[in-house]
Protein backbone atom coordinates (compact mmCIF):
# COMPACT_ATOMS: atom_id res chain seq x y z
CA UNK A 1 0.00 0.00 0.00
CA UNK A 2 1.34 3.42 -0.99
CA UNK A 3 1.09 6.38 1.33
CA UNK A 4 -2.51 7.46 1.03
CA UNK A 5 -2.54 10.00 3.86
CA UNK A 6 -3.56 13.57 3.17
CA UNK A 7 -3.59 16.63 5.35
CA UNK A 8 -6.61 18.91 5.83
CA UNK A 9 -5.31 21.76 7.95
CA UNK A 10 -4.25 20.23 11.23
CA UNK A 11 -6.11 17.05 10.46
CA UNK A 12 -4.30 14.06 9.01
CA UNK A 13 -6.55 11.63 7.16
CA UNK A 14 -5.49 8.03 6.58
CA UNK A 15 -6.68 8.40 3.02
CA UNK A 16 -8.54 10.94 0.91
CA UNK A 17 -11.92 9.14 0.87
CA UNK A 18 -14.69 10.68 2.94
CA UNK A 19 -18.32 9.61 2.97
CA UNK A 20 -20.43 12.61 1.91
CA UNK A 21 -22.92 14.15 4.24
CA UNK A 22 -26.51 13.03 3.83
CA UNK A 23 -25.44 9.97 1.91
CA UNK A 24 -24.17 7.86 4.77
CA UNK A 25 -26.78 8.37 7.49
CA UNK A 26 -24.97 8.89 10.78
CA UNK A 27 -22.28 6.48 9.68
CA UNK A 28 -23.31 3.72 12.04
CA UNK A 29 -25.81 2.45 9.46
CA UNK A 30 -22.88 1.38 7.27
CA UNK A 31 -20.78 -0.29 9.94
CA UNK A 32 -22.00 -3.65 8.63
CA UNK A 33 -20.72 -2.96 5.14
CA UNK A 34 -17.44 -1.22 5.83
CA UNK A 35 -14.99 -0.78 8.67
CA UNK A 36 -15.46 2.94 9.26
CA UNK A 37 -11.92 3.33 10.57
CA UNK A 38 -10.58 2.52 7.10
CA UNK A 39 -12.18 5.63 5.65
CA UNK A 40 -10.45 8.98 5.52
CA UNK A 41 -13.55 10.35 7.18
CA UNK A 42 -17.27 10.11 7.63
CA UNK A 43 -19.36 13.24 7.13
CA UNK A 44 -22.61 12.68 8.95
CA UNK A 45 -26.01 13.96 7.91
CA UNK A 46 -26.56 17.70 8.36
CA UNK A 47 -27.54 18.64 11.90
CA UNK A 48 -29.46 21.57 13.28
CA UNK A 49 -29.67 22.35 16.94
CA UNK A 50 -33.08 20.70 17.27
CA UNK A 51 -34.64 17.63 15.71
CA UNK A 52 -36.14 18.17 12.29
CA UNK A 53 -38.87 16.39 10.50
CA UNK A 54 -37.75 16.95 6.93
CA UNK A 55 -39.99 17.14 3.88
CA UNK A 56 -42.92 14.90 3.07
CA UNK A 57 -42.10 12.16 0.58
CA UNK A 58 -41.49 11.66 -2.30
CA UNK A 59 -38.08 12.98 -1.41
CA UNK A 60 -35.97 11.67 -4.26
CA UNK A 61 -36.30 11.11 -7.96
CA UNK A 62 -33.88 9.47 -10.31
CA UNK A 63 -32.62 11.49 -13.28
CA UNK A 64 -30.21 10.66 -16.11
CA UNK A 65 -27.01 9.52 -14.37
CA UNK A 66 -28.11 11.40 -11.30
CA UNK A 67 -30.81 11.95 -8.73
CA UNK A 68 -32.68 14.80 -7.11
CA UNK A 69 -33.18 14.92 -3.39
CA UNK A 70 -35.25 17.10 -1.13
CA UNK A 71 -34.87 15.35 2.19
CA UNK A 72 -35.22 18.62 4.02
CA UNK A 73 -32.52 17.79 6.53
CA UNK A 74 -34.51 15.39 8.66
CA UNK A 75 -32.33 14.86 11.68
CA UNK A 76 -32.10 14.10 15.33
CA UNK A 77 -30.52 17.41 16.32
CA UNK A 78 -27.06 17.95 17.66
CA UNK A 79 -27.75 16.97 21.27
CA UNK A 80 -29.18 13.56 20.47
CA UNK A 81 -26.38 13.08 17.95
CA UNK A 82 -23.77 13.67 20.61
CA UNK A 83 -25.53 11.46 23.09
CA UNK A 84 -26.72 8.64 20.85
CA UNK A 85 -24.49 8.37 17.79
CA UNK A 86 -21.12 9.91 18.52
CA UNK A 87 -20.05 7.34 21.13
CA UNK A 88 -20.71 4.53 18.66
CA UNK A 89 -18.79 6.36 15.92
CA UNK A 90 -15.85 6.79 18.27
CA UNK A 91 -15.98 3.14 19.17
CA UNK A 92 -15.88 2.27 15.48
CA UNK A 93 -12.82 4.46 15.01
CA UNK A 94 -14.44 6.84 12.53
CA UNK A 95 -12.92 10.22 11.75
CA UNK A 96 -16.09 12.22 12.15
CA UNK A 97 -16.88 15.30 10.09
CA UNK A 98 -20.09 16.82 11.37
CA UNK A 99 -22.10 18.68 8.77
CA UNK A 100 -23.77 21.56 10.61
CA UNK A 101 -26.70 23.72 9.66
CA UNK A 102 -28.47 26.70 11.05
CA UNK A 103 -31.37 29.03 10.37
CA UNK A 104 -29.36 31.85 11.91
CA UNK A 105 -25.72 32.53 12.55
CA UNK A 106 -26.40 32.00 16.23
CA UNK A 107 -27.69 28.53 15.55
CA UNK A 108 -24.56 27.61 13.56
CA UNK A 109 -22.48 28.84 16.48
CA UNK A 110 -24.51 27.01 19.08
CA UNK A 111 -24.29 23.75 17.14
CA UNK A 112 -20.55 24.29 16.74
CA UNK A 113 -20.16 24.89 20.47
CA UNK A 114 -22.00 21.73 21.40
CA UNK A 115 -19.83 19.71 19.06
CA UNK A 116 -16.61 21.34 20.23
CA UNK A 117 -17.42 20.26 23.76
CA UNK A 118 -18.12 16.69 22.65
CA UNK A 119 -15.51 14.01 22.31
CA UNK A 120 -14.79 12.47 18.94
CA UNK A 121 -15.49 15.19 16.40
CA UNK A 122 -12.67 15.69 13.90
CA UNK A 123 -13.99 18.65 11.97
CA UNK A 124 -17.05 20.75 11.29
CA UNK A 125 -18.39 21.01 7.78
CA UNK A 126 -20.52 24.14 7.53
CA UNK A 127 -23.50 23.42 5.36
CA UNK A 128 -24.26 26.79 3.82
CA UNK A 129 -25.38 25.23 0.61
CA UNK A 130 -28.42 23.03 1.11
CA UNK A 131 -30.78 23.91 -1.71
CA UNK A 132 -33.81 22.24 -0.15
CA UNK A 133 -34.69 24.29 2.83
CA UNK A 134 -36.07 27.75 3.20
CA UNK A 135 -34.11 28.98 6.16
CA UNK A 136 -30.33 28.76 6.38
CA UNK A 137 -28.39 27.03 3.68
CA UNK A 138 -28.39 28.93 0.41
CA UNK A 139 -29.35 32.15 2.14
CA UNK A 140 -25.77 32.23 3.45
CA UNK A 141 -24.13 30.20 0.72
CA UNK A 142 -25.18 32.41 -2.17
CA UNK A 143 -23.97 35.63 -0.60
CA UNK A 144 -20.32 36.48 -0.10
CA UNK A 145 -20.99 38.47 3.03
CA UNK A 146 -23.33 35.76 4.32
CA UNK A 147 -20.58 33.20 3.80
CA UNK A 148 -17.99 35.41 5.45
CA UNK A 149 -20.22 36.16 8.41
CA UNK A 150 -21.13 32.55 9.18
CA UNK A 151 -17.59 31.33 8.85
CA UNK A 152 -16.05 34.03 11.00
CA UNK A 153 -18.73 33.66 13.65
CA UNK A 154 -18.19 29.91 13.89
CA UNK A 155 -14.44 30.48 13.84
CA UNK A 156 -14.77 32.41 17.09
CA UNK A 157 -16.49 29.63 18.96
CA UNK A 158 -14.51 26.56 17.99
CA UNK A 159 -10.97 25.40 17.57
CA UNK A 160 -12.07 22.43 15.48
CA UNK A 161 -11.16 22.63 11.80
CA UNK A 162 -14.03 24.32 9.97
CA UNK A 163 -14.86 23.51 6.40
CA UNK A 164 -17.54 25.59 4.70
CA UNK A 165 -19.35 23.50 2.13
CA UNK A 166 -19.92 25.59 -0.96
CA UNK A 167 -22.86 25.61 -3.29
CA UNK A 168 -22.37 25.29 -7.04
CA UNK A 169 -25.41 27.47 -7.67
CA UNK A 170 -23.35 30.63 -8.06
CA UNK A 171 -21.63 32.50 -10.85
CA UNK A 172 -18.17 32.48 -9.35
CA UNK A 173 -17.60 29.74 -6.82
CA UNK A 174 -13.95 30.69 -6.36
CA UNK A 175 -14.96 33.97 -4.76
CA UNK A 176 -16.82 31.99 -2.09
CA UNK A 177 -13.73 29.93 -1.45
CA UNK A 178 -11.81 33.17 -1.03
CA UNK A 179 -14.41 34.62 1.32
CA UNK A 180 -14.15 31.44 3.38
CA UNK A 181 -10.39 31.65 3.48
CA UNK A 182 -10.48 35.24 4.62
CA UNK A 183 -12.99 34.39 7.31
CA UNK A 184 -10.69 31.80 8.82
CA UNK A 185 -11.81 28.49 7.36
CA UNK A 186 -9.39 25.55 7.42
CA UNK A 187 -10.58 24.07 4.13
CA UNK A 188 -13.53 24.29 1.79
CA UNK A 189 -15.59 21.45 0.45
CA UNK A 190 -17.63 21.45 -2.76
CA UNK A 191 -19.93 20.84 -4.48
CA UNK A 192 -23.22 20.54 -2.74
CA UNK A 193 -26.10 19.74 -5.07
CA UNK A 194 -27.43 21.76 -8.01
CA UNK A 195 -30.87 23.26 -7.57
CA UNK A 196 -33.11 21.41 -9.97
CA UNK A 197 -36.59 20.08 -10.56
CA UNK A 198 -38.52 17.34 -12.29
CA UNK A 199 -42.12 17.24 -13.40
CA UNK A 200 -44.37 14.22 -13.74
CA UNK A 201 -45.91 14.85 -17.15
CA UNK A 202 -48.83 12.54 -16.50
CA UNK A 203 -50.01 14.33 -13.35
CA UNK A 204 -48.42 17.66 -14.36
CA UNK A 205 -47.14 17.96 -10.82
CA UNK A 206 -43.61 18.27 -9.48
CA UNK A 207 -42.12 14.86 -8.79
CA UNK A 208 -40.86 16.05 -5.41
CA UNK A 209 -43.27 17.27 -2.74
CA UNK A 210 -40.81 20.09 -2.14
CA UNK A 211 -40.98 21.04 -5.86
CA UNK A 212 -37.24 21.77 -5.98
CA UNK A 213 -34.45 19.38 -5.14
CA UNK A 214 -30.71 19.04 -5.41
CA UNK A 215 -29.06 17.22 -8.31
CA UNK A 216 -26.20 14.88 -7.45
CA UNK A 217 -24.45 11.91 -9.01
CA UNK A 218 -22.23 11.28 -12.04
CA UNK A 219 -24.28 13.70 -14.17
CA UNK A 220 -22.76 16.69 -12.38
CA UNK A 221 -19.18 15.48 -12.20
CA UNK A 222 -17.74 17.57 -15.06
CA UNK A 223 -19.13 20.78 -13.57
CA UNK A 224 -17.93 19.84 -10.09
CA UNK A 225 -14.42 19.10 -11.36
CA UNK A 226 -14.28 22.50 -13.02
CA UNK A 227 -15.39 24.23 -9.83
CA UNK A 228 -12.88 22.37 -7.68
CA UNK A 229 -10.18 23.34 -10.14
CA UNK A 230 -11.23 27.00 -9.94
CA UNK A 231 -11.26 26.98 -6.15
CA UNK A 232 -7.95 25.18 -5.83
CA UNK A 233 -6.34 27.91 -7.89
CA UNK A 234 -8.04 30.68 -5.94
CA UNK A 235 -7.13 29.71 -2.39
CA UNK A 236 -4.27 28.21 -0.41
CA UNK A 237 -6.70 26.19 1.69
CA UNK A 238 -7.11 22.51 1.02
CA UNK A 239 -10.14 21.76 -1.12
CA UNK A 240 -12.34 18.74 -0.54
CA UNK A 241 -13.89 17.81 -3.85
CA UNK A 242 -17.05 15.94 -4.62
CA UNK A 243 -19.87 15.56 -7.11
CA UNK A 244 -20.53 12.34 -8.96
CA UNK A 245 -17.52 10.32 -7.90
CA UNK A 246 -18.15 6.65 -8.66
CA UNK A 247 -14.84 5.18 -9.76
CA UNK A 248 -11.15 5.36 -8.94
CA UNK A 249 -10.61 7.45 -12.05
CA UNK A 250 -13.11 9.95 -10.71
CA UNK A 251 -11.23 10.19 -7.42
CA UNK A 252 -7.98 10.80 -9.27
CA UNK A 253 -9.64 13.33 -11.58
CA UNK A 254 -10.76 15.45 -8.61
CA UNK A 255 -7.36 15.22 -6.98
CA UNK A 256 -5.57 16.23 -10.18
CA UNK A 257 -7.94 19.19 -10.38
CA UNK A 258 -6.77 20.24 -6.94
CA UNK A 259 -8.75 18.34 -4.33
CA UNK A 260 -6.76 17.19 -1.31
CA UNK A 261 -9.53 14.82 -0.32
CA UNK A 262 -12.81 13.78 -1.89
CA UNK A 263 -16.27 12.82 -0.77
CA UNK A 264 -18.50 10.18 -2.26
CA UNK A 265 -22.24 10.52 -1.91
CA UNK A 266 -24.70 9.16 -4.43
CA UNK A 267 -22.43 6.34 -5.58
CA UNK A 268 -22.52 4.94 -2.06
CA UNK A 269 -26.26 4.41 -2.49
CA UNK A 270 -25.63 2.31 -5.55
CA UNK A 271 -22.75 0.44 -4.02
CA UNK A 272 -22.16 0.54 -0.28
CA UNK A 273 -19.09 -1.63 -0.81
CA UNK A 274 -17.54 1.02 -3.04
CA UNK A 275 -14.99 2.09 -0.43
CA UNK A 276 -12.71 -0.91 -0.54
CA UNK A 277 -12.79 -0.80 -4.32
CA UNK A 278 -11.85 2.86 -4.44
CA UNK A 279 -9.09 2.41 -1.89
CA UNK A 280 -7.46 -0.47 -3.68
CA UNK A 281 -8.07 1.24 -7.01
CA UNK A 282 -6.26 4.33 -5.83
CA UNK A 283 -3.36 2.26 -4.59
CA UNK A 284 -3.14 0.46 -7.94
CA UNK A 285 -3.25 3.75 -9.80
CA UNK A 286 -0.39 5.18 -7.76
CA UNK A 287 1.62 2.05 -8.29
CA UNK A 288 0.99 1.96 -12.04
CA UNK A 289 2.07 5.56 -12.33
CA UNK A 290 4.89 5.12 -9.86
CA UNK A 291 3.65 7.89 -7.61
CA UNK A 292 4.74 7.57 -4.02
CA UNK A 293 2.00 9.40 -2.20
CA UNK A 294 -1.62 10.12 -2.94
CA UNK A 295 -0.90 13.69 -1.88
CA UNK A 296 1.35 14.05 -4.92
CA UNK A 297 -1.72 13.89 -7.13
CA UNK A 298 -3.21 17.04 -5.67
CA UNK A 299 -3.34 19.70 -8.35
CA UNK A 300 -1.03 17.70 -10.62
CA UNK A 301 -3.10 18.47 -13.70
CA UNK A 302 -0.73 19.00 -16.60
CA UNK A 303 -1.79 22.06 -18.55
CA UNK A 304 1.34 22.17 -20.69
CA UNK A 305 0.21 22.51 -24.27
CA UNK A 306 -1.56 19.18 -24.63
CA UNK A 307 0.44 17.08 -27.04
CA UNK A 308 -2.00 16.27 -29.82
CA UNK A 309 -3.71 13.42 -27.98
Amino acid at each position, binding site marked *: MRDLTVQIGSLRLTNPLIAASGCFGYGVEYAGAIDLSTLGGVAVKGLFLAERDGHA*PPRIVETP*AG*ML*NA*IGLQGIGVHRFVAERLPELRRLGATVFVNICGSTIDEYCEVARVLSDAEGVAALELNISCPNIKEGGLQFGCSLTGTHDVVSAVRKVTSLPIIPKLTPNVTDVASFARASEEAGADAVSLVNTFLAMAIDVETRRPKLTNVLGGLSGPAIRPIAVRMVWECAQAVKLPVIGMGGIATTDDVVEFMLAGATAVQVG*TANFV*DPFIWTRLLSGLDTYLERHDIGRAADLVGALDLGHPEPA
Partner: protein
Amino acid sequence: MIVDVSAEVLENVRLSPEFNVLSLAAPAVARLTRPGQFVMVRVRPGLDPLLRRPFSVFEILRDDAGQPRGISLLNKIAGVGTGWLYRAEPGTRVDVLGPLGQPFAPVDPPAEAWMVAGGVGLAPFATLAEALALRGTSMTLFYGARTAEALYRTDLFERLGARLSLSTDDGSRGAHGRITGPLEQALDALDGRPVTIYACGPTPMMRAVSALAAHRDAPVFVSLEPVMGCGMGGCYSCVVRVQAGERGRFVRSCLEGPVFDASTLVWEALPAGH
Protein backbone atom coordinates in the same frame (compact mmCIF):
# COMPACT_ATOMS: atom_id res chain seq x y z
CA MET B 1 -24.91 -9.50 7.48
CA ILE B 2 -25.37 -7.87 4.13
CA VAL B 3 -23.70 -9.06 0.95
CA ASP B 4 -23.49 -7.81 -2.60
CA VAL B 5 -23.33 -10.50 -5.25
CA SER B 6 -23.14 -10.39 -9.00
CA ALA B 7 -25.86 -12.96 -9.58
CA GLU B 8 -26.35 -14.89 -12.77
CA VAL B 9 -29.88 -15.13 -14.09
CA LEU B 10 -30.66 -18.85 -13.92
CA GLU B 11 -34.15 -18.76 -15.31
CA ASN B 12 -36.77 -16.25 -16.32
CA VAL B 13 -40.33 -17.50 -16.31
CA ARG B 14 -42.70 -14.98 -17.83
CA LEU B 15 -46.08 -15.44 -16.23
CA SER B 16 -47.88 -12.80 -18.27
CA PRO B 17 -46.99 -9.75 -20.37
CA GLU B 18 -46.43 -7.94 -17.07
CA PHE B 19 -45.20 -10.46 -14.52
CA ASN B 20 -42.21 -12.77 -14.38
CA VAL B 21 -40.27 -14.82 -11.90
CA LEU B 22 -36.55 -14.31 -12.15
CA SER B 23 -34.27 -16.92 -10.59
CA LEU B 24 -30.86 -15.69 -9.51
CA ALA B 25 -27.74 -17.56 -8.44
CA ALA B 26 -27.14 -15.87 -5.11
CA PRO B 27 -26.49 -18.51 -2.48
CA ALA B 28 -25.02 -16.05 0.01
CA VAL B 29 -28.16 -13.93 -0.09
CA ALA B 30 -30.39 -17.00 -0.02
CA ARG B 31 -28.71 -18.31 3.12
CA LEU B 32 -29.14 -15.08 5.03
CA THR B 33 -32.66 -14.08 4.01
CA ARG B 34 -35.42 -14.12 6.59
CA PRO B 35 -39.12 -13.98 5.71
CA GLY B 36 -40.23 -10.75 4.08
CA GLN B 37 -36.78 -9.25 3.67
CA PHE B 38 -35.80 -7.46 0.49
CA VAL B 39 -32.82 -6.95 -1.77
CA MET B 40 -31.61 -3.96 -3.76
CA VAL B 41 -31.02 -4.92 -7.38
CA ARG B 42 -28.83 -3.14 -9.88
CA VAL B 43 -30.55 -4.18 -13.06
CA ARG B 44 -27.66 -3.57 -15.42
CA PRO B 45 -24.15 -2.13 -15.49
CA GLY B 46 -23.59 1.48 -16.33
CA LEU B 47 -25.20 4.64 -15.04
CA ASP B 48 -28.64 4.39 -16.63
CA PRO B 49 -30.61 3.61 -14.58
CA LEU B 50 -28.37 4.80 -11.78
CA LEU B 51 -30.02 3.55 -8.63
CA ARG B 52 -30.83 0.04 -7.48
CA ARG B 53 -34.43 -1.15 -7.23
CA PRO B 54 -35.93 -2.81 -4.15
CA PHE B 55 -37.49 -6.27 -4.47
CA SER B 56 -38.86 -8.68 -1.95
CA VAL B 57 -37.14 -12.02 -1.96
CA PHE B 58 -39.82 -14.26 -3.43
CA GLU B 59 -38.52 -17.82 -3.20
CA ILE B 60 -35.42 -19.24 -1.59
CA LEU B 61 -34.12 -21.63 -4.25
CA ARG B 62 -32.56 -24.83 -2.98
CA ASP B 63 -30.50 -27.54 -4.58
CA ASP B 64 -31.34 -31.23 -4.30
CA ALA B 65 -29.58 -31.44 -0.96
CA GLY B 66 -31.77 -28.62 0.30
CA GLN B 67 -28.92 -26.09 0.35
CA PRO B 68 -29.82 -22.50 -0.61
CA ARG B 69 -28.49 -21.80 -4.08
CA GLY B 70 -30.28 -18.64 -4.96
CA ILE B 71 -33.39 -16.53 -4.77
CA SER B 72 -36.19 -15.65 -7.11
CA LEU B 73 -37.96 -12.35 -7.57
CA LEU B 74 -41.60 -11.90 -8.50
CA ASN B 75 -41.28 -8.95 -10.82
CA LYS B 76 -43.99 -6.70 -12.19
CA ILE B 77 -43.19 -4.20 -14.91
CA ALA B 78 -43.53 -0.67 -13.56
CA GLY B 79 -40.87 1.16 -15.56
CA VAL B 80 -37.35 0.92 -16.89
CA GLY B 81 -35.75 -1.24 -14.22
CA THR B 82 -38.55 -3.75 -13.87
CA GLY B 83 -38.78 -3.75 -17.68
CA TRP B 84 -35.16 -4.90 -17.88
CA LEU B 85 -35.73 -7.60 -15.31
CA TYR B 86 -38.71 -8.80 -17.30
CA ARG B 87 -36.57 -9.21 -20.39
CA ALA B 88 -33.38 -10.43 -18.67
CA GLU B 89 -32.06 -13.54 -20.35
CA PRO B 90 -30.46 -16.44 -18.50
CA GLY B 91 -26.71 -15.98 -18.36
CA THR B 92 -26.81 -12.24 -17.84
CA ARG B 93 -25.97 -10.89 -14.41
CA VAL B 94 -27.54 -8.47 -11.98
CA ASP B 95 -26.07 -7.15 -8.74
CA VAL B 96 -28.04 -8.16 -5.68
CA LEU B 97 -27.48 -6.42 -2.35
CA GLY B 98 -29.08 -7.86 0.74
CA PRO B 99 -30.85 -9.17 2.58
CA LEU B 100 -32.24 -5.93 3.95
CA GLY B 101 -34.93 -4.68 6.30
CA GLN B 102 -36.93 -6.02 9.20
CA PRO B 103 -38.40 -9.46 8.50
CA PHE B 104 -41.89 -10.67 9.30
CA ALA B 105 -42.17 -12.29 12.73
CA PRO B 106 -43.96 -15.57 11.92
CA VAL B 107 -46.61 -16.27 14.51
CA ASP B 108 -46.73 -19.58 16.39
CA PRO B 109 -49.69 -21.89 16.87
CA PRO B 110 -52.30 -21.88 18.20
CA ALA B 111 -52.63 -18.48 16.49
CA GLU B 112 -53.48 -18.64 12.80
CA ALA B 113 -51.61 -16.66 10.18
CA TRP B 114 -53.49 -14.91 7.42
CA MET B 115 -51.55 -13.48 4.54
CA VAL B 116 -53.38 -10.85 2.50
CA ALA B 117 -51.82 -10.18 -0.89
CA GLY B 118 -52.86 -7.77 -3.62
CA GLY B 119 -51.22 -8.25 -7.01
CA VAL B 120 -47.42 -8.21 -6.82
CA GLY B 121 -47.89 -7.91 -3.05
CA LEU B 122 -47.73 -11.70 -3.10
CA ALA B 123 -43.95 -11.46 -3.26
CA PRO B 124 -42.94 -11.37 0.42
CA PHE B 125 -45.28 -14.19 1.41
CA ALA B 126 -43.57 -17.23 -0.03
CA THR B 127 -40.73 -16.94 2.49
CA LEU B 128 -43.19 -16.22 5.28
CA ALA B 129 -45.30 -19.25 4.35
CA GLU B 130 -42.21 -21.45 4.54
CA ALA B 131 -41.43 -20.19 8.01
CA LEU B 132 -45.00 -20.64 9.12
CA ALA B 133 -45.11 -24.17 7.74
CA LEU B 134 -41.99 -25.04 9.74
CA ARG B 135 -43.72 -23.87 12.90
CA GLY B 136 -46.87 -25.72 12.07
CA THR B 137 -48.88 -22.52 12.09
CA SER B 138 -52.17 -22.89 10.27
CA MET B 139 -52.28 -20.37 7.45
CA THR B 140 -54.55 -18.86 4.84
CA LEU B 141 -53.56 -16.85 1.81
CA PHE B 142 -56.08 -14.18 0.88
CA TYR B 143 -55.03 -13.17 -2.60
CA GLY B 144 -56.73 -10.76 -4.93
CA ALA B 145 -55.96 -9.79 -8.49
CA ARG B 146 -57.68 -8.37 -11.52
CA THR B 147 -58.39 -11.65 -13.27
CA ALA B 148 -57.94 -15.37 -12.76
CA GLU B 149 -54.85 -15.28 -14.98
CA ALA B 150 -53.26 -12.70 -12.69
CA LEU B 151 -53.35 -14.99 -9.66
CA TYR B 152 -49.86 -16.44 -9.77
CA ARG B 153 -48.06 -19.32 -8.12
CA THR B 154 -50.83 -20.29 -5.75
CA ASP B 155 -49.32 -23.80 -6.04
CA LEU B 156 -46.36 -22.69 -3.92
CA PHE B 157 -48.63 -21.83 -1.07
CA GLU B 158 -50.88 -24.86 -1.39
CA ARG B 159 -47.81 -27.08 -1.29
CA LEU B 160 -46.90 -25.52 2.06
CA GLY B 161 -50.37 -26.29 3.35
CA ALA B 162 -51.93 -22.85 3.10
CA ARG B 163 -55.65 -22.53 2.53
CA LEU B 164 -56.49 -20.21 -0.34
CA SER B 165 -59.10 -17.52 -0.36
CA LEU B 166 -59.04 -15.82 -3.72
CA SER B 167 -60.80 -12.91 -5.35
CA THR B 168 -60.75 -11.25 -8.72
CA ASP B 169 -62.00 -7.89 -9.83
CA ASP B 170 -63.89 -9.54 -12.68
CA GLY B 171 -65.07 -12.57 -10.73
CA SER B 172 -63.27 -14.98 -13.05
CA ARG B 173 -61.87 -16.88 -10.08
CA GLY B 174 -62.74 -16.82 -6.37
CA ALA B 175 -64.90 -14.09 -4.94
CA HIS B 176 -66.01 -11.21 -7.13
CA GLY B 177 -64.41 -7.94 -6.07
CA ARG B 178 -61.69 -6.93 -3.68
CA ILE B 179 -59.93 -9.37 -1.38
CA THR B 180 -61.14 -7.35 1.59
CA GLY B 181 -64.58 -8.96 1.04
CA PRO B 182 -63.52 -12.55 1.81
CA LEU B 183 -61.23 -11.23 4.53
CA GLU B 184 -64.05 -9.47 6.30
CA GLN B 185 -66.25 -12.58 6.14
CA ALA B 186 -63.44 -14.66 7.57
CA LEU B 187 -62.88 -12.17 10.34
CA ASP B 188 -66.58 -12.27 11.16
CA ALA B 189 -66.40 -16.06 11.36
CA LEU B 190 -63.35 -16.09 13.63
CA ASP B 191 -65.29 -16.69 16.75
CA GLY B 192 -62.51 -15.78 19.14
CA ARG B 193 -59.72 -17.76 17.48
CA PRO B 194 -56.47 -15.74 17.58
CA VAL B 195 -55.15 -14.63 14.20
CA THR B 196 -52.25 -12.55 13.04
CA ILE B 197 -52.63 -10.82 9.70
CA TYR B 198 -49.82 -10.01 7.27
CA ALA B 199 -50.64 -7.76 4.34
CA CYS B 200 -48.85 -6.52 1.25
CA GLY B 201 -50.32 -4.77 -1.75
CA PRO B 202 -51.61 -1.37 -2.81
CA THR B 203 -51.64 1.12 0.05
CA PRO B 204 -55.44 1.53 0.06
CA MET B 205 -55.80 -2.23 0.39
CA MET B 206 -53.36 -2.44 3.28
CA ARG B 207 -55.09 0.44 4.97
CA ALA B 208 -58.48 -1.22 4.56
CA VAL B 209 -57.14 -4.50 5.95
CA SER B 210 -55.67 -2.62 8.85
CA ALA B 211 -59.01 -0.94 9.59
CA LEU B 212 -60.98 -4.19 9.33
CA ALA B 213 -58.64 -5.99 11.68
CA ALA B 214 -58.43 -3.16 14.19
CA HIS B 215 -62.16 -3.64 14.89
CA ARG B 216 -61.46 -7.27 15.76
CA ASP B 217 -58.25 -6.72 17.71
CA ALA B 218 -56.26 -8.82 15.24
CA PRO B 219 -52.67 -7.63 14.89
CA VAL B 220 -51.73 -6.60 11.35
CA PHE B 221 -48.25 -6.38 9.91
CA VAL B 222 -47.91 -4.68 6.58
CA SER B 223 -45.00 -4.67 4.18
CA LEU B 224 -44.66 -1.23 2.59
CA GLU B 225 -43.14 -0.39 -0.76
CA PRO B 226 -42.06 3.24 -0.79
CA VAL B 227 -39.45 4.60 -3.16
CA MET B 228 -36.04 3.64 -1.81
CA GLY B 229 -32.79 5.25 -2.82
CA CYS B 230 -30.33 3.05 -0.96
CA GLY B 231 -32.04 0.43 1.17
CA MET B 232 -29.34 0.85 3.81
CA GLY B 233 -30.46 3.82 5.87
CA GLY B 234 -28.15 6.24 4.12
CA CYS B 235 -30.46 8.57 2.24
CA TYR B 236 -33.66 9.13 4.23
CA SER B 237 -35.75 8.88 1.07
CA CYS B 238 -37.94 6.01 2.22
CA VAL B 239 -39.56 7.50 5.26
CA VAL B 240 -43.04 6.72 6.47
CA ARG B 241 -44.78 8.41 9.33
CA VAL B 242 -45.27 6.49 12.54
CA GLN B 243 -47.28 7.61 15.51
CA ALA B 244 -45.29 9.53 18.11
CA GLY B 245 -46.30 12.56 20.06
CA GLU B 246 -48.73 14.90 18.38
CA ARG B 247 -47.62 14.80 14.79
CA GLY B 248 -45.82 11.51 14.56
CA ARG B 249 -42.34 11.17 13.12
CA PHE B 250 -40.69 9.94 9.96
CA VAL B 251 -38.80 6.66 10.17
CA ARG B 252 -36.79 4.99 7.44
CA SER B 253 -38.72 2.05 6.10
CA CYS B 254 -35.59 0.33 4.79
CA LEU B 255 -34.26 0.05 8.34
CA GLU B 256 -37.34 0.03 10.57
CA GLY B 257 -39.46 -1.61 7.86
CA PRO B 258 -40.48 -2.57 5.26
CA VAL B 259 -42.62 -4.57 7.71
CA PHE B 260 -44.55 -2.40 10.14
CA ASP B 261 -47.16 -3.03 12.77
CA ALA B 262 -50.09 -1.40 10.98
CA SER B 263 -51.38 0.17 14.16
CA THR B 264 -48.24 2.27 14.53
CA LEU B 265 -48.48 3.94 11.12
CA VAL B 266 -49.94 7.33 10.30
CA TRP B 267 -51.83 6.11 7.25
CA GLU B 268 -52.91 9.57 6.13
CA ALA B 269 -49.25 10.47 5.57
CA LEU B 270 -48.52 7.47 3.35
CA PRO B 271 -48.25 8.06 -0.36
CA ALA B 272 -51.33 6.58 -2.01
CA GLY B 273 -48.98 4.20 -3.75
CA HIS B 274 -48.20 3.41 -7.28
